[in-house]
């Protein structure tokens, strides 16, 4: 059962007015950006050596870690010729005073499912290449999203962390033994990467009062009525949408938000690319 959120952060109404007034003038409450620009974003790869792939994303003060684990398992009955991709998100209680320990709530489930669909629908990972023995043994790829610090816009940070961890991943060593079983040695990584066909990011646009703003921080999110999450691939196709939040949107707002998302997406793709090409000096702080 989904219940209207009843334990909400309280944002002083003066603060709320300030956020709205600034936005109306094309400014943000953090004083350093406009409505079209995400916060500083940094992607770090290989942060958990034991995982097949991992990444830490810092989007402003929001921190999300993603880990990719792989194992050999059975395919789904209706897709015997495809590997299995599973996304799971944990809102661990150290990330926010609003998070309590326990199984994933509707927000964590929604987040994981949006990331999952955004990867799956466009075929970001070529699951057809993850088959060991059709109908019997395939690779199961787990993406675990771990929210470490929640300062708003978990969607974009999580999607970026998932994508980065997938790109960071290397297949573990495995061999088929005579019984037909496949033994995986998680201690030994090969050089082989996952078959990534598309890179996907999401851009979240919040509606605050009458204004739209990309990448809301926690305070902005708290005073926003509704968020629209666009998943986009590198060629600009829409590969997923999620309206999230108690509010509603006009048709024009939906389309304006799409324009804003398309304009902001390259910032995320660039952060991803920078992490993958370690030649750069590596921004800090």
């Amino acid at each position, binding site marked *: *059962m*989904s*219940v*209207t959120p*009843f334990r909400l952060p309280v944002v002083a109404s003066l603060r709320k007015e300030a956020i709205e007034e600034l936005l109306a003038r094309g400014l943000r409450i953090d004083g350093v950006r406009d409505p079209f620009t995400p916060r500083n974003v940094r992607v770090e790869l290989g942060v958990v050596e034991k995982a097949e792939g991992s990444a830490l994303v810092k989007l402003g003060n929001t921190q999300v870690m993603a880990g990719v684990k792989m194992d050999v398992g059975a395919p789904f009955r*209706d897709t015997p010729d495809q590997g299995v991709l599973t996304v799971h998100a944990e809102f661990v209680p150290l990330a926010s005073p609003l998070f309590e320990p326990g199984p994933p709530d*509707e*927000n964590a*489930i*929604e987040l*994981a*499912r949006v990331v999952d*669909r955004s990867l799956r*629908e*466009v075929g970001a990972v070529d699951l057809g290449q993850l088959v060991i023995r059709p109908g019997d043994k395939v690779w199961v790829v787990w993406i675990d999203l771990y929210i470490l610090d929640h300062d708003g816009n978990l969607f974009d940070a999580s999607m970026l962390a998932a994508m980065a961890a997938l790109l960071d991943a290397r297949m573990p060593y495995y061999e088929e033994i005579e019984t037909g079983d496949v033994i995986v040695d998680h201690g030994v990584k090969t050089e082989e990467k996952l078959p990534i066909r598309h890179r996907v990011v999401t851009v979240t646009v919040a509606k605050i009062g009458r204004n739209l703003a990309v990448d809301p921080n926690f305070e902005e999110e708290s005073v926003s009525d*509704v968020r*629209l999450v666009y998943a986009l*691939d590198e060629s*600009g*196709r*829409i*590969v*997923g*949408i*999620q*309206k*999230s*939040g*108690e*509010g*509603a*949107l*006009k*048709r024009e707002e*939906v*389309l304006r938000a*799409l324009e804003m998302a*398309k304009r902001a997406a390259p910032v995320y793709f660039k952060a991803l690319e920078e992490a993958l090409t370690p030649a750069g000096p590596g921004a800090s702080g």
Partner: protein
Amino acid sequence: MKVEGVKLIREDGLRHDGRRPEDLRPIRMEVGVLSNADGSALVEFGRTRVLAAVYGPREPPQKFMLLPDRAILRVRYHMAPFSTSDRKSPAPSRREIELSKVIREALEPIVLTKQFPRTAIDVFIEVLQADGGTRTTGVTAASLALADAGIPMKALVGGVAVGKVEGVLVLDIDEVEDSMGEADMPVAGAPDLGLITLLQLNGVMTEEEFQKALDMAWDAIRRIVDMEKEVLRWKYNVGGDSK
């Protein structure tokens, strides 16, 4: 079960069930179908059959979740075990948990919750048979059940899914089109307010396709909400002269 070799768009341009791309399935709406609930409705889009019931405003067992300035909505989208091809476990799946949230957020903007502080309005949606579009059928049924329960609303909401199959945008997709098609975009909203209250896209669309799909959905939602009005008018004889 995956059906091999089905042509979703036939050579004459019609869909596998004979509909044109812009056609809705046969729709049936009935209100007041349950005796205990404060409001109820049964809505069918083709073989998709969804029952909704509303209780409230009332005091829930857990009072800690009440809000001082408005009613809370509690929404459950749930599928009957026999509603799907393979039996569905009755425990709430991750999909049902997400859709309960998405449907609640589709109803929040239109219910006048400020009129009933410190109460809960409960919306229970049971999918009796699932053949595509259950969430949007659920929003439609919930809208009718809320009206039947006498809950004040800014406007009625309705919903429908637009799909993309074999490159063609088609309205009100059924399960075969959903599972074999390239995209499924459920939309719900209140045409009288010009507000979209539910929007998801599972699949891939270009910007142009997206705009066109949105317009197809919006046009259909208008028709669906008109049907809702007619059913309620007929039931409550508002205005007196409905057929």
